[in-house]
């Protein structure tokens, strides 16, 4: 591509790189500097690192974190792959319903499954007999709640990867005598490889970074995320907290490496000549997938139902009288219902800004020619937030924007800053979803439109976006509901005028008014679920208008 388009795309890529450098690399750099300072800002060399290495609890927490994350990843992918496969490759009825149910954990803060597990399997839990003497508090509880929280993200990525495929490949394989097992291992799995790798690393790094769950269920089992919180909020030791945060950044390089490695092996699966795969009815397979998705869906819903139940009774297990008093939030937190309004504004802003940013950035890196170095930079920056725990990013924002002389310091404490921070925090999943969808489009559309003198933005609007619309809607809804529930990214950044509901939940949980915390979880859940229903309706209408070619 030549001159005009070349420098425009260079300018755009540069803009994306600059945004991510200022709002991601800048804060992380400030955090890095903080690692070498004591609590008064004096340079103390590697003393904070030495303190980290000589603290047995911090080293133990590192091992615990890696173990929890690895186990969570293994279990989540094992459960999510058949689920996503059923949604895309079987002809079972009720797919839309199952898809919606798989997204249920996203609608509530990760504190909700933790609270529910306490009421189900805790020391006074409804089903504590199931634990046969083992304690929920520790690895068991953390892993179960983490799988619940990470499940929707794995399903989101895997369904996108599995949803487009060339039927001719399957016909060719059948003609060559390949049975269903061989077809699965030679076509389906290689085709979904990029999605699998992406999903594995999203789940791994998310469960590594989550701190809501170990806060509630950790007991005497420290992990890195809770240690950051402990060092920063408990001990006010920003330096060591920053070092613990840095220890969490190691998975970033692994994720980056795996994404690049896998991306190199991914070729366009759907060319203009492809024939879309249509799953055939198969009574046995379909009812099998339906039973499986039904069981998983019931477990997901059961955990949410427990939270709802607890929020509606007076005091488990002693006083089971139904009540709405837990929803009178003014009694438990000074922001009252106002925090919920802040969350709605935060979520809407994050969804709009984040969808445009992640899809636009993925388009620039996947579809425009040239500038390999700049693209690698943008891709690397887009992947980096995966391994950056929200708290660490939030800390970096304090250090960076609160630094005297930063021209952007006016942003500090504003709602705009919360939105930008949340967008950056959630950037990677959006980028990966968009990139996975874009990689599956034919590479020649841009050349054709140039030859027809149609500006690139028009082909972007008329072909690329409509073909990717399901993925775009998924990104937007993911950003909205995650922003509704996020705690970690904003816990250091809010002001009384912008305090979101998720932080209010954390405060209420800490002050022991757990039923009220569960109640506010349910308010977030209900509003997100309502929006999700609207989204499903909108999606159906939009799909009918833009995806006619699939039928």
């Amino acid at each position, binding site marked *: *591509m*030549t*001159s*005009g*388009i*070349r420098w425009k795309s260079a300018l755009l890529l540069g803009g994306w790189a600059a945004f991510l450098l200022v709002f991601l690399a800048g804060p992380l750099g400030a955090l890095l500097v903080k690692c070498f300072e004591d609590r008064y800002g004096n340079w103390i060399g590697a003393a904070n690192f030495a303190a980290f290495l000589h603290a047995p609890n911090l080293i133990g927490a590192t091992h615990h974190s890696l173990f929890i994350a690895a186990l969570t990843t293994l279990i989540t992918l094992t459960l999510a792959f058949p689920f996503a496969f059923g949604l895309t490759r079987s002809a079972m009825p009720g797919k839309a319903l199952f898809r919606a149910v798989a997204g249920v954990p996203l609608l509530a803060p990760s504190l909700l499954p933790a609270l529910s597990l306490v009421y189900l399997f805790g020391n006074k839990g409804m089903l504590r007999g199931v634990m046969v003497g083992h304690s929920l508090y520790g690895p068991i509880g953390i892993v179960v709640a983490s799988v619940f929280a990470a499940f929707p993200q794995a399903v989101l990525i895997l369904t996108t990867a599995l949803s487009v495929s060339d039927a001719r490949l399957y016909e060719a394989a059948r003609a060559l005598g390949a049975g269903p097992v061989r077809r699965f291992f030679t076509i389906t799995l290689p085709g979904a490889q990029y999605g699998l790798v992406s999903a594995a690393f999203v789940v791994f790094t998310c469960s590594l970074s989550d701190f809501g769950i170990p806060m509630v269920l950790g007991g005497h089992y420290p992990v890195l995320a809770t240690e950051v919180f402990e060092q920063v909020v408990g001990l006010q030791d920003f330096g060591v907290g920053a070092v613990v945060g840095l220890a969490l950044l190691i998975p970033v390089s692994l994720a980056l490496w795996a994404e690049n490695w896998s991306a190199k092996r991914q070729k366009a699966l759907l*060319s*203009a*000549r*492809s*024939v*879309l795969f249509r799953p055939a009815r198969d009574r046995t397979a379909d009812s099998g997938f339906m039973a499986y998705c039904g069981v998983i869906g019931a477990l997901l819903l059961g955990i949410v139902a427990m939270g709802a139940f607890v929020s509606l009774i007076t005091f488990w297990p002693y006083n089971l009288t139904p009540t709405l008093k837990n929803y009178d939030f003014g009694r438990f937190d000074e922001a009252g219902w106002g925090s919920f309004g802040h969350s709605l504004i935060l979520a809407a802003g994050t969804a709009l800004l984040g969808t445009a940013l992640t899809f636009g950035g993925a388009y620039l890196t996947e579809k425009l020619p040239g500038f390999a170095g700049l693209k690698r930079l943008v891709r690397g920056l887009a992947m980096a937030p995966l391994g950056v725990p929200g708290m660490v990013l939030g800390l970096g924002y304090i250090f960076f924007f609160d630094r005297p002389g930063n021209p952007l310091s006016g942003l500090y404490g504003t709602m705009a800053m919360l939105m930008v921070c949340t967008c950056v925090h959630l950037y990677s999943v959006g980028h990966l979803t968009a990139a996975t969808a874009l990689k599956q489009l*034919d590479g*020649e*559309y841009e*050349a*054709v*439109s*140039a*030859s*027809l*003198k*149609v*500006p690139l933005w*028009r082909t972007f609007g*008329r*072909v690329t976006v*409509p*073909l990717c619309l399901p993925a775009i809607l998924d990104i937007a809804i993911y950003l909205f509901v995650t922003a509704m529930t996020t705690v970690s990214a904003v816990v250091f950044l809010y002001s009384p005028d912008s305090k979101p509901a998720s932080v209010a939940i954390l405060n209420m949980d800490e002050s022991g008014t757990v039923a009220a915390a569960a109640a506010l979880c349910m308010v977030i859940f209900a509003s997100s679920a309502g929006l999700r229903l609207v989204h499903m309706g909108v999606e159906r209408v939009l799909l009918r208008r*833009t*995806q*006619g*070619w699939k039928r």
Partner: protein
Amino acid sequence: MAYLVLSDIEKTYGQFRALEGVSLSVAEGEFVCFLGPSGCGKTTLLRIIAGLDRQSAGRVEIAGKDCSAAPPEQRDYGIVFQSYALFPNLTVARNVAYGLASGGGGASKASERRVAEMLELVGLPDIGGRYPGQLSGGQQQRIALARALAPAPRLLLLDEPLSALDARVRLSLRRQIRALHDRLNLTTIMVTHDQEEALTLADRIVVMNRGHIEQAGTPGEIYAHPASLFVAGFVGAMNFFSVTATGKDSVRLGPLELACGHDHDSGSPLTLCVRPEDMILTGEGLPARIESVDFLGPVHRALLSAEGLGSFSIDLAAEQMRDFALESGREVRIKLPSERLQLFPGHPS
């Protein structure tokens, strides 16, 4: 009058030189084929003409205008790719209307008329409402052609447009492309690796190899007077013999001294090229032995071997086969007519 002029085009990817010193001028209304093996740079050259890739050095002039630095949208051409690249989410009619002025918004009367006209032109008048996925490969390629021609470009670029199609469709589409070219008075450049396609379609063939032009000429010239050993071997069937120059007007081929004018020094190693259909079966000349005979329809092609000269082939008419009772194992004598011999420096590799 020259419609397209390429001067000293060069394209490098790091250390790799994809094109060097490519100069070519294409007359208005001419049908030119870029022919060559894969990796010879023919597609790169087409993409440079299209502005989809940018040359490292050199000049591209289209219709008297210097386009060397112009982006694709400022050049006047239509392009068709091997993979069709039709937009799967748009109907056939909207695909064809894509490059028309009103393609973006609601279809205007003028663009509707143009779409109908184009679909008529490619012989698919009634499928405007369908989606590309519902059409056969040949139909999709005709739609891609209609889409490229809808904005009425004067230059048509075709990147192996027939390679993905089956033989019968390819043959009829080949004729259709040539008919469209003549009817619309287009200047057409087609990239192909299929020599039969190039020989039957083109006014002029540009044979490319390893990033440069080996020869540009009419199909007749390319076939009868290849300019290099590569062209001699790439276009049509050819026999190669190692010979040595023995004077200004003869070469030594095994036991034979052949009269053949050239200007190489005596004793220099040369390659002698003769097409199978130019070899003559007579009672005198090079002794050889028939190894096998293939039936090609109008003629038979016999594979022969001669002492110290390796194997070569000769075309034989059906009546020769009968008259001489030719079959494997027969000893025969072959004459190489001096007016049909081509000499190139160096021995064949």
